């Protein structure tokens, strides 16, 4: 007993500096951000407190409300779409198809590219002057229309499309790993019972993959919240402000517009929103099960 406690203490002691760094670097800066959001800071942080004035400005701004709406549209379509596409790809590959290795690499490859590159590629593809639209029109289909990035009603979907192309492969890799882990016996049993394969997938396999789905959703949700580089490279928030996203709003105000107060207010609202949506869900997914199981 005594030896164990001593060992624990040494471990705690060794970890202390790391805890200090974590607290200062993550929690400390977070609190600092919140503090600045209550000041009149412009180019530099100042200590002149103005209460909720920055938040009033923020919620009075059309651009902010448009970016928040866009974040919801993008988030729902991107996470949902990547999950469905990724799962279907994994199921197809799980049929022991030929050239599986090659196909797996091909589908996962986009994930190796940064969002900046992804954004640029799709910007070119959707450019009316040199992209897919021009190619198809040159083949004779003159009414073909695929200039999403420069169309204010479609620009946000252009972002979703590029995002899906990039992230589906990752979901596929995760799901495929899960599918490979499914016990052969389950398939044998279902075959004996004569259950069609799609029902087995939907009602047996998907619930078994739940931890992987949670992981995928968390990873995808993070890229929704921090979506900045994709927007900058593909549409730069345009045409107008039609495809603006919260992270871009924060960056613009932080650097170009010398509006640190407003930018930190927006960052705080983002933090609260994410916390309000994600934390309860992750908590139930991870910790409730752990407690029922009795481990940790």
């Amino acid at each position, binding site marked *: 007993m005594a030896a164990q406690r001593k060992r624990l203490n040494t471990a705690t002691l060794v970890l202390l500096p790391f805890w200090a760094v974590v607290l200062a670097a993550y929690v400390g800066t977070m609190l600092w951000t919140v503090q600045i959001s209550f000041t009149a800071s*412009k180019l530099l942080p100042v200590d002149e407190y103005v209460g909720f004035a920055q938040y009033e400005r923020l919620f009075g701004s059309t651009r902010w409300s448009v970016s928040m709406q866009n974040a919801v549209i993008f988030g729902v379509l991107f996470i949902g779409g990547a999950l469905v596409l990724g799962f279907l790809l994994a199921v197809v590959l799980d049929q022991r198809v030929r050239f599986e290795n090659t196909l797996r690499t091909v589908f996962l490859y986009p994930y190796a590219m940064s969002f900046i590159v992804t954004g640029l590629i799709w910007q070119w593809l959707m450019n009316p002057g040199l992209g897919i639209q021009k190619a198809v029109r040159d083949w004779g289909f003159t009414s073909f229309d695929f200039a999403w990035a420069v169309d204010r009603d479609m620009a946000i979907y252009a972002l979703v499309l590029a995002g899906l192309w990039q992230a589906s492969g990752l979901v596929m890799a995760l799901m495929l790993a899960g599918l490979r882990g499914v016990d052969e016996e389950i398939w044998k049993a279902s075959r004996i019972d004569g259950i069609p394969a799609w029902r087995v997938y939907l009602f047996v396999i998907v619930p078994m993959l739940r931890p992987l789905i949670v992981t995928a959703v968390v990873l995808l949700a993070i890229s929704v919240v921090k979506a900045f580089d994709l927007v900058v490279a593909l549409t730069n928030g345009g*045409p107008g*402000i039609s495809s603006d996203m919260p992270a871009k709003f924060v960056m613009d105000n932080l650097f170009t517009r010398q*509006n640190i107060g407003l930018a930190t207010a927006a960052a705080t609202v983002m933090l609260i929103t994410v916390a309000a949506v994600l934390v309860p869900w992750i908590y139930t997914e991870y910790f409730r099960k752990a407690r029922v199981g009795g481990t940790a």
Partner: protein
Amino acid sequence: MKGLVRSILASAAIGVAVMPAAAQEKPRAEVMHWWTSGGESAAIKTFADAYNKAGGVWVDTATAVGENSRAATINRMIGGKPPTAAQFNTGKQFDDLVTQGLIRPIDDLAEKGGWKQVMPASLVAAASRDGEMYALPINIHGQNWIFYSKAALKKAGLSELPKTWEEMVPAMQKMKDAGLTPLALGGQPWQERSLFNAILLQQGGKNLYMEVYQDKNEEAVRSEGFRKAVETYGKLRQMVDPGSPGRSWNDTTALLIKDEAGLQEMGDWVKGEFINAGKKPGVDYGCTIGLDDSMLMVGGDVFVFPKIDDPQQKKAQDLLAETMISKDAQVAFNLAKGSMPIRKDVDTSAFDECAQKGLKLLQSEDSQAPVFEILVSASLAGAVDDVITQFWNNPSASPDDMIEGFVNAFELEG
């Protein structure tokens, strides 16, 4: 192997020990700027050469894109390791740094060199806070230039460019009917705003322009003149090509160079693109200021000198400022940059015919107006950009939407 490593280390150590001794003697000036494109780096090199010739050592710290460079400068100033000099745009970008006492006033140098007498008063004012000069303006960029392709004009059956926006709109329609893109515009908020401001200055006149942007006057925004400018601007929404949104200014200029588009409203940095493409002013392309060469919108670049206690660095700052503003350096720099010299008393015969037009307007205060960035804060500028870009990109937005948006922006950010 071990011997090799050891000898490399040894020689590196000797190198480190010897290096500082040689550099100590001359005033070292570290200059932060964002001039990284071909023409721009050629321009800054003229300054570097002049400074080295004057007995200093120029240390170049270039960061691409103005925002990034300014962010780096500000970080270093706050961190207590400022550069000798740093570039900003003429305007309000460095206001907070002055308030925080981080920038050295250069009135003493200006008095000694008699600079204020030879510079345009509006730019001296833009570089000063409470009557004291805090920044050194080094060039003048006109920002309401209209560049047009002569071949495109001919193709549309126009003998010359109309002198007013009222005649311009039907002329653009003619270009459109001839299969051209009448207006070459890069659909980025700052370019869309630049076009609107050029129209406002031309159609509404300098008084209205100043009432709107300097006084933030609500009545001026609701006036008939402002509405007319908005209406003209609205009509131009149909004059751009579908590839416009998000395009950079230089890709847009390429449309003029290929004679596919009629005209582009931009600053005089566009000339660099024409020069690179081997196009000649007056032959291949034309240039007017506004539409009738009557009013120049002036802005430019400045260098600020952070407050540093080290006397050696102060000496470097003095020498640097005197070098940059000297007559020879002014001509060499501005020829390469495509801008106009900040001094009225230099020989300008080497400048092209477009620059000559600008120089003529610079002679009088009545024929120039400051650019938007000099008059409004960065946050108001951003809010105005948002309003203008929403109007421009939404074909169903009415002039009232834009006017109300301006009033709103002034109330929130003014």
